């Protein structure tokens, strides 16, 4: 059975935490774009350090010019957005170092982005990081885990294909 057949037969996909920290409900994010799930269902990570890893295998489909957000599309078609902090678009790339380019292939757990969380907080921005599925309506269900402390690589979203 080829890889393509395996993907077609899969019933579920997983998204893992991109960072160590605390995983909370996305509804707790004090920004309606995320908290009201306009961008899709997901979770939010309160990151403990500034290292962010790929939350799944896939292709870097979006890399914001301002480096604060990365979109990854998985082989199952799950479009994952990782958005580090709130309103951090206004930092215009300051305090962010990105290790990937648009259209790069990434493996789950690859270091993709580093952020100086202390410097971002010192400028008055929240560092809470929504991790969500942009194309939520394409799936039967997107199920977030309950609030808990997580390591990078712990499953935080189950997607029923």
């Amino acid at each position, binding site marked *: 059975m080829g890889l393509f057949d395996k993907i077609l037969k899969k019933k579920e996909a997983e998204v893992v935490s991109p960072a160590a920290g605390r995983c909370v409900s996305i509804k707790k994010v004090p*920004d309606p*774009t995320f908290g009201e799930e*306009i*961008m*899709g269902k997901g979770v939010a990570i309160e990151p403990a350090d500034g290292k962010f890893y790929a939350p799944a295998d896939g292709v870097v*489909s*979006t*890399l*914001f*010019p*301002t480096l604060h*957000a990365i*979109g990854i*599309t998985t082989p199952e078609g799950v*479009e994952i*957005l990782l*958005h580090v902090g709130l309103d951090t*678009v*206004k930092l215009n790339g300051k305090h962010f170092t990105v290790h990937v380019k*648009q259209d790069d292939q990434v493996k789950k757990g690859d270091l993709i982005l580093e952020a100086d969380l202390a410097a971002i907080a010192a400028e008055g921005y929240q560092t809470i990081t929504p991790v969500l599925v*942009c*194309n939520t309506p394409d799936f039967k269900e997107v199920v977030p885990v309950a609030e808990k402390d997580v390591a990078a690589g712990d499953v935080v979203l189950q997607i029923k294909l």
Partner: protein
Amino acid sequence: MKTVEYVVADPLGLHARPAGLLVKKAAAYKSGVTLKNAETGRSADAKRIMGVMSLGVKKGNRIELSIEGEDEDTAAAELKAFLQENL
């Protein structure tokens, strides 16, 4: 088919929040809506958030919405107003 052209004035460009709002708005119409970044020539379905964000639209970029379907007149007028108010 209707076309709406707009030059992005928002200094932050078409980032997550306006992309989310644009997609929510576009998805409400029966017409198909395609967004093109005229600077790069790349296009995406305006009803899909990741596609819209992947166009990397920045301040000063000219964008084009192509709208085709039974409610294209209403959609074109309302989406034009949306762009003027939000971007």
